[in-house]
């Protein structure tokens, strides 16, 4: 058991494995996205209060879910890297951060484009919107901190500490609409309660979330491969890898 884990936790064995996994996740993401978009636009009915504008929910909510979920996974990898002092988990955390930042920004921007026609404002400083903005700063801070330290091992440690401190913010985002008066409405989907939306709308939203999830795995694997090549460019396995692929130099 142990032997197996250690085998796959070294970059030279994980690199080709990740390469074989990427197409599967990319295909899954595409298929879920096509079905999800079809349901979002052609099957899901018009909303009784928001008309067609509510369809922004099909990108906004999945993006917001991913922004929080990726942060938790990233912090988990960072903690694993910190406690085992291992390379691969730290690289996974580093690979997830930019995608998490993109989904956070997407949640903020699509929310803004939904808030303007529905609420009447592009932006308000309520607890939900403010805490999501802080999440964006946490991602950007993590990326900036990691790239500002030359020694990769030290950069991993500093980044991991920041990522772990920032975890506090995730439950704040999630429960902000419950704990405080916010302009943002409460949760449509919550644990222990029936979803407050019709099944076809829910199905579209879940499929889009699934598509984003598969996309995230594919893209994180792509990025972790880049990080491995860049960090270990002097090692023999990278040289072998580089010489085995075609193309001009």
């Amino acid at each position, binding site marked *: 058991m142990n032997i197996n884990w250690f085998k796959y936790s070294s970059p030279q064995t994980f690199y080709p494995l990740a390469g074989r996994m990427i197409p599967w996740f990319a295909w899954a993401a595409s298929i879920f996205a096509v079905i999800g978009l079809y349901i979002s636009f*052609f099957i899901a009915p018009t909303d009784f209060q928001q008309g*067609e504008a509510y369809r*922004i929910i099909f*990108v906004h909510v999945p993006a917001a879910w991913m922004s929080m979920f990726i942060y938790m996974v990233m912090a988990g990898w960072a903690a694993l890297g910190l406690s085992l002092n291992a390379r691969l988990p730290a690289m996974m955390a580093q690979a997830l951060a930019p995608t998490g930042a993109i989904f956070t920004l997407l949640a903020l*921007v*699509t929310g803004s*484009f939904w808030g303007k026609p529905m609420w009447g404002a592009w932006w308000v400083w309520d607890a939900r919107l403010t805490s999501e903005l802080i999440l964006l700063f946490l991602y950007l801070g993590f990326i900036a901190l990691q790239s500002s330290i030359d020694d990769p091992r030290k950069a991993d440690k500093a980044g991991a500490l920041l990522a772990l401190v920032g975890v506090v913010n995730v439950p704040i985002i999630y429960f902000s609409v419950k704990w405080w008066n916010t302009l943002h409405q409460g949760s449509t989907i919550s644990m222990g309660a029936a979803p407050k939306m019709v099944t076809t709308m829910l199905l579209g939203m879940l499929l889009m979330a699934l598509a984003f999830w598969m996309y995230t795995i594919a893209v994180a694997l792509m990025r972790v491969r880049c990080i491995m090549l860049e960090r270990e460019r002097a090692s023999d396995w990278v040289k072998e890898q580089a*010489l085995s692929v075609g193309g001009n130099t």
Partner: protein
Amino acid sequence: MQWSSWSAFFNMGGYAFYVWFSFGLTALWLVWEVLALRKRSAVALNLAKLLAQDK
């Protein structure tokens, strides 16, 4: 089917700008991320190849 015609579909009940901007931006950003990573991978491999050939 929700729409009486394609123009009704593109009009999105008068919210075309907001809806299409949101979906368009999402698609654009995600595609850009994939393309940027492909480029980054090619650059890293090329550099490693140069290093390997240098010895």
